Each structure stands twice: as structure tokens, then as C-alpha cells.
């Protein structure tokens, strides 16, 4: 079983990223459950999205100790630290914040927002860049599956950019 936790600010697309990850895992033949916690506001508060991937039906759908923790904003780092342990691999967006402390077994800096701005003139694709980095690092499944799901969810220009964002993320690892 793998437990993956995403955290960011509402509007960054962490729930979408988690959804794509879980959907990909299901296409890979695994069981997956994806859930989330967020505030009543549609944007601006700390959000958390969770994915559990397993070989059998997932009983408890929330992360207890994350194997991977993707952090896209500073608030989540402190707020959800108790859901990590010494084995957690943390992937954070160092172009958004500088972590105050090291947690888990490894801290990987992916400057996703900066990479998104440089490549697409918008911060919008940072979540998918992070996802590309996660799949490259974790080898949860082949990145081709991730791209297949992206192709189901996006069309035209958005599709091309999201596919490119996956590659940018993978190349950052």
C-alpha cells in the first residue's frame, strides 16, 4: 500500500492532481481511493488531498503516514507534519516557500511554480509538474498511464501543455 498526500492552497489544483494520480493507479490495475479536505471558501485556504493505492480494496481512505508528501504551499507543511514519519519522501515547491525544517527521509525541491511561469507564462501547471516529478521519483506506474489519463481529461491546447508539464516534472528529478 502507498499513501500519498498533497497539500497546497485552494486554487492550485492539488485535488485535481490527486484525482489524476488515483485515476492512473486504477488504470494500472490497482485499487485507489482519493479524498480531500478543504475549507468552505473556494480559494485561498490550506487544502489537503489524499490518495491511497493498494493491491486490494482500500479500507481506510485517508493517509495515516505518508509515503510521499507533495507540498505546494508553506501552511500545509506544518499543518500535516503529523501525517509524515522518518520514511516520508517530501517533494516541495521551493519557488513558493523555503521549508523551515527538514521532515521525512528526503526533501526534494521542485520549483514547479517557477517552471510553470517560465514555460507557460502562468503558474497554473505547477500541480501537474509536481505530479510528473512524483511519478518519476516513485515509479508507482509508468508515466505513459499518467499521460493517458491526462488525455481523457483535457483537450486541445490544455492537453498539450499538461503533457509538457508532466515531462518538465519528470526531467526535474
Amino acid at each position, binding site marked *: 500500500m502507498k499513501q500519498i498526500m498533497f497539500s497546497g492552497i485552494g486554487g492550485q489544483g492539488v485535488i485535481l492532481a490527486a484525482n489524476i494520480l488515483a485515476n492512473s493507479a486504477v488504470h494500472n490495475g490497482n485499487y485507489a*481511493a482519493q*479524498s480531500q479536505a478543504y475549507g468552505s471558501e473556494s480559494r485561498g485556504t490550506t487544502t489537503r488531498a489524499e490518495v491511497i493505492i493498494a493491491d486490494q480494496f*482500500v479500507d481506510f481512505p485517508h493517509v495515516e503516514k505518508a509515503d510521499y508528501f507533495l507540498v505546494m504551499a508553506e501552511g500545509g507543511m506544518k499543518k500535516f507534519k503529523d501525517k509524515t514519519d522518518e520514511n516520508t519522501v517530501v517533494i516541495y515547491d521551493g519557488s513558493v516557500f523555503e521549508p523551515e525544517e527538514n521532515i521525512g527521509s528526503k526533501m526534494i525541491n521542485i520549483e514547479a511554480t517557477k517552471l510553470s511561469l517560465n514555460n507557460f507564462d502562468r503558474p497554473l501547471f505547477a500541480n501537474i509538474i509536481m505530479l510528473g516529478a512524483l511519478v518519476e521519483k516513485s515509479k508507482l506506474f509508468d508515466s505513459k498511464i499518467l499521460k493517458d489519463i491526462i488525455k481523457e481529461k483535457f483537450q486541445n491546447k490544455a492537453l498539450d501543455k499538461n503533457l509538457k508539464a508532466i515531462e518538465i516534472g519528470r526531467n526535474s528529478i
Partner: protein
Amino acid sequence: MEKVKFLEGNTACALGAVRAGLKFFGGYPITPSSEVAEVCSEELPKAGGRFIQMEDEIASIASIIGASLAGSKAMTATSGPGFSLMQEALGMAVMGEVPIVIVSVMRGGPSTGHPTGPSQGDLMQARWGTHGDHPIIAIYPESVNEVYYEIIRAFNLAEKYRQPVVFLMDEVLGHMKESVFINEDKIETVERRKIEMDQKKYNPFLTENDIPLTANYGEGYRFHVTGLYHDETGFPDVSSENIQKTMDRMYRKIYNNMDDISKNEEMNTEDMDILLFSVGTQARSAKMAIRMLKEEGINAGLFRPITLWPFPEERIVELGKKVSKIVAIEMNKGQMADELRKYVCEEDEKKIIPLNKLESELIPPQEIVDKVKEVL
């Protein structure tokens, strides 16, 4: 042939309802149920149905009662504040014996409470929310896959017994995404009984096996539905005799068919040191706790009513005799613990151990494990 879809709970609810034959949705979107309305607005017209966004929840339930009386399978979806507003007309649907399905995706209450967080605070509201004695059917699944199949069963029971059915979910289940294994061979739908009778002999509340043989409005039969106690003609009769007789019949039509209506899941209840009782999404945490306890040599069992109301009294009495302790795990202040005490606590009032939390999160498996070890 099985088809795997990766769906959100609310989406599975809407798609299952359409598969069940839903033809009318009247609703007022509210977090965390809004996606049920959203998906119905897209899918219903394609299936030959109608979607209407009403001005509020009172109008929403009134609209589905009307649609159902006119012959359509009808549903609304809401959450706590909206469910509160629907209570009066829910009673009307019970009294008029109108087949409707009301989805309530539970969030933190009372009042606006916590819109985006889960709760199990409305289990008793589903049972007793509308005033007066009345039978009710409520179903509460645990997974997105189960949502798809159980919403179909909700429609089937509503149609078969001419009875409003409350379909409970919680925020976690409504917004969780997981696999749904759609197998057409496993799906059965119940269609409303077609009434063919000499119009002169017909009355809307003539019954067969305690279930009224009401024709759909507009099919040429005499028609009257009222919230007052009524006789076979549908017109008011508030004589003492009729009031007692009518409600006795309404109870019989549900409670005499418990074999058909009741549905539970049991895990390890054959050989157990302690029983866990939990419903809906929270039961998944209990299942994981059972596996963790097993590793430590403790045999815990699980009893999970899928049909929550009517409460599975008989089975809980049997299971209660097998164990000395039952831990009732709920995201509320102990609503089911109180219900359990009605059936299993003759000698030992400490037999029911409530594990309750209102932290707007599922109670995690470890806390259940700790509680079991503490009380065993």
C-alpha cells in the same frame, strides 16, 4: 461483462439513480451534495428525464412528490440544512405513500455547521426528523461502488413499497473517488405497478399486502392525496379507528418485509471477542482496525447495517448475546449507541461502549484499536 469506472461518490449516486430509472430531479444544490444535482442536470435530459433547480429545498421535495404522483421515478439531493427544510414534506410523502428518494450527504451540523466536513449527525433525523409516528427506510453505503448499487436498491424499495427512502451519505463518501465495478448482470430495477382496474371500483388507497394500489395522476383514475389521515378514497377520515388502522398498516408494510428491506454486512462475527458497530464510511476504518487487532491476537467482529432504518433489531439482539462488549464508532455524539442500548443492555448497561468524535474527520483505525484494547 464488468466495466470499471473511476467516480466520485456523488457522481456514482447520480449515475446509479439514472440507471435505476430516475426521470425527475428537483433540487437546490448544497455542499457537499451539489455534484449529485450537477451530474443529474447533464445526464437526466439524455435519459429522457427532467432536471429542475428549484428555489429552495421545500419546493424541491414538493416537486419530486408531484413528479412521483404523476408516475416518474423522482429524487432530490441535499445536506443537513436542506434536509431539515424537507422534513415537513417528507411526512407528506409518508402519509401519501409516495415513492421518492431523498439523498442527504451529511456534513457537520447543526445549522450551517461545517459545510465541507463529514459527520454522522443526521442518522436520527433520517429516522425521526418529520413529526408523528411513521415508518421510514434509510440506506447508508460505505464505498463509491456500493453507492452505485444501493441507490438503485433505494429506488426499487421506494417503488415496491410506495415509501419515501432516505439515502444517506457523508462528505467523505460524497467527495471520495474510487473504482465502481459496473456489472449489468447484478442490476435489477423495479418498475411501478401498473394499475388496471374497473374505474368505478377503483380507489387510490385500496391496498394489497398493505401496499396501496395507487394509479398515477393523469391516467384516468379518481385521485386525491392529502396529508390528513384518509380512507381508501384518499379523502380525510380522522376517526380514531382509522388513524390507528392506517398507521398500523403503514408499519406492517415495512416491518413485515424486513427480509426484503434489511441488509447488513458482517465481518468475523462467528468467532469474536468483541463486536464493533459502525455505519457508512466510518465502518471502513473499523474494518482496518479489525485487521490490525487480528495481528495482535484479538478477534473483533463488525456489524454494519446497510439498511440503517428500519434498524436490524433481531440480528443485533442475537449478536449482543455473543459478546460482552460492543464498541459503537460514530462521527456524532452517540446516536447509534443509544439505539443499540434499546436492544442489548438488559443486564449490563456498560455493554455498549461509545467511541464518538466530532472532529470532522473519520475516526482513524488506531483510535479504534486503542479503545478496544482499553475496554477488553
